[in-house]
């Protein structure tokens, strides 16, 4: 599998070093992170008491004289050796910043030239801000480097599956797949321990929620670990959940078995959906996209539009409200994302969050699906808010979602 390039992305641009620092801060595991940058780039590291021991982070602390005199390489080499001596890690992630990029310090080339102990996996990524990566590109890199750091030899276990980019579902999928004879061996979240990511290398097959968002990870799984990877839309809604389970089972030739295993739950969910459609079908729902910069999967998977099919299944008429630039270039990006996900929906661009109130007030919407942080703007419009990420996956999630939306729309 080749990497399909940066995922289509409408999120706000961000600095890769900042994003990777944030994401790696919450991953438990015996690794070190070396930032190849000036000291200020590391000022987020100790600022969150929830982080997993931030002493795993080091910085080459580039000064002006070193940057100008070309001593960045030596600083980085010394910093990596120091990190290894101090933490004795199984893996080291090296992230280059803007200055490193400007002075031509190629982090990958520099660490490759170091004679480090073979047992330590060293993964380098150039992470400056001038490339203006979107958040999806950062998540792609993040999950990719976690897989890069996994041990090369992992024993494969037959009829095991690894799931990436799917929200937790209180054990429903494990139970139903188990009935069909398929074991879920790895299901990492973005803040899962490194061991959970390493476990992906040992599964028989893997499924990701977005093949472009997890493009690097999929490529590494396929090429280095010989794990076939498929992309399936997240199990949001009754039909999507059934498709998802059957899609997973199809990899093992067990479609019939999974269909039988999930029949009772599937029927209950479909009944709830039908009842909801009778009551609320045709109502208009606004789906707001691009309001957050939080590296959360529910705002990034499938362009932040993963929940749209679930709303369509409920008979709601969806209109998309994109926050961000209103220029033509942005419109082209939006069209590309919609085409990529085969969605034909009306949309509008809102230049800022304050514009949301007016759009909702005059749009005839029964509710809006958007970030909870926009509660104030939504409240001013008097439209009920369905928080982004609140849709639970699976059949049980579908039933619960129908009940919740029903209460909200009544």
């Amino acid at each position, binding site marked *: 599998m080749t990497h399909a390039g940066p995922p289509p992305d409408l999120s706000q*641009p*961000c*600095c*890769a*070093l*900042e*994003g990777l620092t944030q994401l790696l801060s919450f991953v438990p595991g015996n690794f070190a992170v*070396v930032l190849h*940058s*000036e*000291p*200020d*780039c*590391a*000022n*987020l*590291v*100790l*600022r*969150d*008491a929830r*982080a997993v*021991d*931030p*002493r795993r*982070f*080091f*910085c*080459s*602390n*580039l*000064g*002006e004289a070193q*940057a*100008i005199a070309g001593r960045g390489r030596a600083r980085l080499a*010394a*910093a990596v050796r*120091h*990190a290894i*001596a*101090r933490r004795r890690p199984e893996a080291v992630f090296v992230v280059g*910043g*803007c*200055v490193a*990029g*400007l*002075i031509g310090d190629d982090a990958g080339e520099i660490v490759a030239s170091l004679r480090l102990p073979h047992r330590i996996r060293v993964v380098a990524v150039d992470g*400056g*801000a*001038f*490339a*203006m990566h979107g958040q999806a590109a950062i998540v792609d890199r993040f999950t990719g480097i976690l897989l890069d750091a996994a041990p090369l030899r992992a024993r494969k276990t037959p009829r095991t599956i690894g799931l990436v980019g799917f929200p937790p579902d209180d054990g429903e999928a494990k139970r139903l797949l188990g009935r069909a004879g398929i074991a879920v061996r790895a299901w990492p979240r973005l803040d899962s321990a490194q061991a959970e990511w390493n476990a992906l290398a040992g599964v028989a097959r893997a499924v990701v929620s977005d093949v472009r968002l997890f493009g690097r990870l999929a490529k590494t799984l396929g090429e280095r670990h010989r794990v076939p990877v498929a992309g399936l839309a997240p199990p949001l809604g009754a039909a999507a959940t059934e498709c998802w389970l059957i899609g997973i089972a199809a990899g093992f030739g067990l479609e019939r078995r999974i269909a039988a295993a999930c029949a009772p739950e599937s029927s209950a969910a479909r009944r709830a959906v039908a009842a909801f459609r009778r009551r609320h079908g045709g109502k208009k729902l606004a789906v707001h996209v691009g309001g957050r*910069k939080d590296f959360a999967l529910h705002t990034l998977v499938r362009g932040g539009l993963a929940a749209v099919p679930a709303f369509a299944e409920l008979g709601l008429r969806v209109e998309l409200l994109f926050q961000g630039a209103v220029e033509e270039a942005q419109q082209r990006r939006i069209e590309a994302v919609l085409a990529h996900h085969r969605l034909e929906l009306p949309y509008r661009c809102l230049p800022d969050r304050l514009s949301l109130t007016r759009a909702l007030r005059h749009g005839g919407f029964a509710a809006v699906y958007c970030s909870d942080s926009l509660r104030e703007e939504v409240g001013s419009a008097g439209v009920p808010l369905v928080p982004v990420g609140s849709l639970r996956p699976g059949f049980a999630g579908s039933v619960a979602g129908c009940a919740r939306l029903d209460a909200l729309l009544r």
Partner: protein
Amino acid sequence: MARDFDIPLGNHRAIFGAFLAAHAIPDALDLMFTGVGCKPKSQRQLAVHDRFRDAGNKLAWADVGDVQLISGPAERLRNTTVETVRRRGNVGLVLVTTSAAMELTGADVEAVLPAIRRDIDCPVVHLPTAGWDGDLYRGYASAVRAVLGLARWKGPRGDRRSVNLLGYLFDRYENDHRANLGELRRLLGALGITVNVGFLSGAPFAELMRAPAAGTNLLLPYLAGEPESFRAATRRNTARCALPVGLGATTRFLEEAARAAGVPRRTVQALVAAERERFEPLLRMAREGLAGVRAAVLADTPLAAGLVALLGELGVKPVLAGLLDRTLGGAEAFRSALAASGGAADDCVVLPDPTADEVEAACVQLRGGRRRADSSPPFELLISPDLWLPPAVVDGVARVELGFPSNRRHALAASPFMGFAGVVSLAQRLLDGLASRNA
């Protein structure tokens, strides 16, 4: 060399300090001539620290990517600044800050400023703030000096007893700083001294520009440099003052202010005696509750000196002081400020610009060489900002959150830490901390 690669607890650099200064002037705009990451990284930290005023709108980013780097980022700076100021309106001042990377590109910011100034009708100040320079305090001080330099000092001097409070570190609009400034105004007012402008204090730019109406400048320790340089720049009588944290330092602050403003010493003595008489019964109760307690402080040098002195005044034994800055004088300045306030730290371990590992090592020593958290804690109370700290430092210890960042503790009610009211308020917080630890 090894320590070179560890990340110290106080690792903000000048670019963040300049942003704090912009936040402290409600109509100032910090135009970041940087890569995209500097903006959210800065605003996220202040957004959690200050719940009273939105930090996000203080910042604009020059929108520089690879393409702009090649085609000429300075032009991009001009366009973004002009557009942003026009769109927002009510911008009193623009601070242009620059990252290390942007400075390396050699983009000539100074050359583009005249064009920006022609297009907008507010002052524009360039603050070179590469992310390898100085620290938060130096960045804040540079911004304060730059803004001071915009005032017209050539006019007539005001009354000597009208003073500017220069170098007040105003990092949020909550009721800790508001109460501090209120307390200092109250105490100085009792001496017949009026605070003309708090520099910085949440006052808008136009109000700051009224600074020349004062006859005297009181210089707090966050503004490095000799009073003579400020005297020459402002043509006003200028005196260095102690940071008024603790009984001794507050007394010294009032004495120094009175001397600069020409208030007789006996007036100060009378005020201090009256204040201490008023507060002493409360402090006596606090001392009873805090007797024999050990404490550690992590703060910038002036604040750490004030807090360590205060702990001694309350009968608490200070055992560790970590100084979270790189430019405010370090251990020498700490000991000197402490001695001047009548405090002592003979058995107190002082760590300049420490890393988490160094604080942990000091705590292990204080635990008698035992690393395990189930051994007796190295101290009962820790006064520090909201920082990640190792278990060997914080397990079994009551934390009193003070300084930047204070992400968990927000000051809804007045809770000063300066002046005599600040002593009582801090004593209360220490007692509360101890009570929660023992609960």
